[in-house]
């Protein structure tokens, strides 16, 4: 089990032109900024290329590439170096922007493209599940968010109400 092997495989796939660009999101992405939290899978956001002769974007090339290098399918995941990896298209303008603005982060011997802390926090706000709220709170408490950038993302993507509600629920001293 070695998550760095997953990162290396994705970088090779990018270098070989199978994907245009990618970014790590979810709990693994958050680990670049926060304390590590146990997770079941690795979320890789990627723009799928269409198959030759097809207008539909498909992850088939990605799966074929990784299977040829020892990956094995497990439901919607492909298992690489012991980690179930899920490839996700950017399904919202917020995630599209996060993918475009992702940053390179050095990891011993390689580098990884990761969503910014502000985009990870905004995506957690938008997703809105209990664990997303917990992650957003971690980002706020850790003090790793650039408030101006975060607020700009929140405004751009119509998340002001969700943010106000989150502030009332978790950041207000009032009962």
């Amino acid at each position, binding site marked *: 089990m070695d*998550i760095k092997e997953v990162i290396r495989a994705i970088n090779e796939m990018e270098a070989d032109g199978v994907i245009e660009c990618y970014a790590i999101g979810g709990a693994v992405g958050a680990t670049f900024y926060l304390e*590590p939290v*146990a997770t079941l899978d690795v979320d890789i956001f990627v723009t799928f290329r269409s198959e030759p002769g097809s207008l539909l974007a498909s992850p088939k090339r990605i799966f074929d590439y990784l299977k040829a290098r020892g990956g094995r399918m497990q439901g919607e995941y492909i298992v690489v170096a012991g980690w179930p990896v899920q490839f996700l298209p950017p*399904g919202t303008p917020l995630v599209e922007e996060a993918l475009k603005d992702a940053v390179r982060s*050095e990891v*011993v011997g390689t580098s990884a493209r990761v969503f910014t802390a502000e985009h990870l926090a905004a*995506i957690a706000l938008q*997703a809105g599940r209990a664990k997303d709220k917990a992650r957003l709170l*971690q980002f706020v*408490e850790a003090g790793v968010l650039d408030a101006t950038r975060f607020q700009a993302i929140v405004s751009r993507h119509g998340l002001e109400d969700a943010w106000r509600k989150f502030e009332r629920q978790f950041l207000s001293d009032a009962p």
Partner: protein
Amino acid sequence: MSFELHAILESKRALRRQLAARPVAEKLRLLDAMREREIAIRGRRIQSDSSVLREEPAPFRPKPL
């Protein structure tokens, strides 16, 4: 060791800050270790048990208004 809640919470916060400040490579190794431990605890039986309450998948799309 203290049983004072305030001190306990502050010590937890300090540990979290300390973990967050570690190099990324080290934090990724911790993820590997946590996943290995989780697999060992869960085992295959639980994964195939349909009565287990599962986490809903991330929507990654705006909520309906």
